[in-house]
């Protein structure tokens, strides 16, 4: 008890220094947490993927379309329970910086394939009924202040010209980790307009097929089967699980993700230097006291332990505060980023990492000062007063 009081009061001895160190730990922990959350957000698509869905695309690259006629043959493959398709539209809503994915989908089958997108019965009916209807996610509705019934215009890039729609529904995500920053409209409408606007490449084609399978364990087998149907044809396919498909996107910008991960550890190094400095100075200033304790009969390990405990206290308090504050800051940041990061959630793994790192910082920062203090020659230490 007495020793605990000693520790606590030592931490607070220099209030300014303690407050600053605490703040430094808080900021560093927060920064690490935010960066980890950015990395998690990058992987959000893969996290939300279902292992009962396969994605079939053109084997050359995603940029090449597949003919809609492939649908019939894919449906026949054993293990396939249902099929849908989607085209990446890639239009611009008002300004290029308002980025969110837009897909032309086969409405009924697509909504069945993605039960995590929740619509009311009325919205669903309205959407299915009207060819020019569009369904947007909650995140888009909130970011741009859109309501059911609003008109919405997209400027096409891949499919040039202006495209007019009306919002029939706003879908909610079943979990907080569901992406609600997407826009869906009718593939039939796209196809008709492609014909009308004379866009030959866009007619009767789709970007991907979404294949639902009854047995996730057979995913690899079924994928190979589908691809074998179209081998050596003009439109060869590549089928993979939705998770692999999403991870493919992450892999494309892997360099950026790795850079962010590295930088998140740089901030830990920075704060480690700051803490090591604080502990080194503190230990040096109290040389006389530690020498006195040793004279009184306390072991070198004990005095080393005092330093280590003090460092840990500071680090852990700062770390906990930083971890706690990460949640509201992440929420604000996620809202500010709008539809660029549709899912911006602090993973529990991130919080655990934050606390572990705070602990490590506390330990490492105290290693050398504690070792030095344990080695103080009593006589020299006393002379230092």
């Amino acid at each position: 008890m007495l020793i605990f009081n000693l520790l606590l009061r030592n931490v607070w001895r220099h209030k300014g220094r303690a407050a600053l160190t605490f703040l430094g730990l808080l900021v560093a922990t927060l920064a690490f947490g935010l960066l980890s959350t950015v990395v998690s957000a990058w992987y959000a698509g893969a996290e939300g993927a279902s292992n009962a869905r396969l994605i079939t695309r053109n084997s050359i690259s995603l940029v090449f379309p597949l003919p809609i006629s492939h649908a019939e043959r894919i449906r026949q493959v054993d293990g396939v329970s249902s099929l849908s398709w989607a085209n990446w539209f890639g239009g611009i809503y008002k300004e290029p910086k308002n980025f969110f994915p837009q897909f032309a989908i086969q409405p009924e089958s697509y909504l069945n394939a993605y039960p995590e997108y929740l619509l009311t019965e009325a919205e669903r009916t309205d959407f299915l009924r009207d060819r020019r209807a569009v369904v947007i996610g909650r995140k888009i509705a909130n970011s741009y202040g859109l309501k059911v019934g609003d008109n919405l215009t997209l400027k096409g890039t891949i499919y040039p010209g202006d495209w007019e729609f009306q919002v029939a529904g706003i879908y909610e995500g079943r979990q907080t980790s569901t992406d609600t920053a997407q826009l869906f409209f009718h593939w039939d409408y796209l196809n008709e307009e492609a014909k009308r606007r004379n866009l030959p490449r866009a007619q009767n084609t789709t970007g991907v097929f979404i294949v639902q399978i009854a047995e996730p364990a057979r995913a690899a087998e079924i994928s190979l089967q589908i691809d074998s149907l179209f081998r050596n044809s003009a439109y060869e396919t590549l089928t993979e699980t939705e998770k692999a498909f999403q991870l493919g996107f992450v892999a494309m910008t892997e360099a950026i993700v790795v850079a962010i991960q590295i930088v998140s550890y740089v901030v830990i190094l920075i704060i480690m230097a700051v803490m090591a400095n604080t502990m080194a100075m503190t230990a040096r200033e109290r040389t006389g006291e530690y020498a006195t304790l040793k004279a009184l009969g306390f072991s070198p390990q004990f005095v080393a332990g005092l330093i280590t405990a003090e460092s840990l206290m500071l680090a852990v308090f700062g770390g906990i505060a930083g971890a706690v504050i990460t949640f509201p800051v992440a929420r604000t940041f996620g809202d500010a980023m709008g539809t660029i990061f549709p899912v911006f959630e602090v993973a529990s793994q991130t919080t655990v990492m934050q606390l572990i790192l705070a602990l490590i910082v506390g330990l490492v920062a105290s290693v050398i000062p504690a070792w030095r203090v344990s080695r103080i020659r009593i006589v020299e230490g006393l002379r230092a007063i």
Partner: protein
Amino acid sequence: MIELRHVSKRYKRGGQLVPVLHDLSLCVARGEFLALMGPSGSGKSTLLNLIAGIDRPDSGEILIDGQDIARMNESELARWRAQHVGFIFQFYNLIPVLTAFENVALPLQLTSLSEAAKKARVLKALTMVGLADRLDHTPSELSGGQQQRVAIARALITDPSIIVADEPTGDLDRQSAHDILVMLSGLNREMGKTILMVTHDPKAAEHALRIVHLEKGQLEAGIAAVPLTPAASVAPTQKTDAHF
């Protein structure tokens, strides 16, 4: 009870080895109050440090109650010190963030006494030095003389057989110095504590029973000092216990 045999000690100063004590032998009887005097650099503090077990000689033996502490390793010495030595320093060396009570209680952390027993001892010690009313004052709230008295209470708390004091009155005014020295004499006479005190002040040395002079690391003649009158002991209203 303290016997030094052919003790030598050299220090490294600025890259050179400087001899401080040379083939020194000394005996101190139990219950003695010894003053170590000598000019600066004579090695008196070094001698004190060796006897207190906070430094090791290069050669020789230091027998205390039959044990050669020069042969002990670090942790054995630490344990030995906790049980046998009480320290009083020139600048008190109290822990600034702890109260008077807590400073005195500190050495008891190395014992296995119960919390209640510890508390009782501390109260007794502080009462003995006349600071029972300043239990929860921190050193910054105490005068120099009061701080030294807390230090004395701390030095006594584990009931050690030896008390070492390195210039205990060096930083005090005349009156406080006198009070401290009287207290030390009292401890020596009434509790039978063996006290070794380093001082450069002849007046302070007069409170001791024997004075030894050190010159260039060697002992000169030991003179018995005239003991002071009993009237100058601890305040008459306070009882002194022989042991805790």
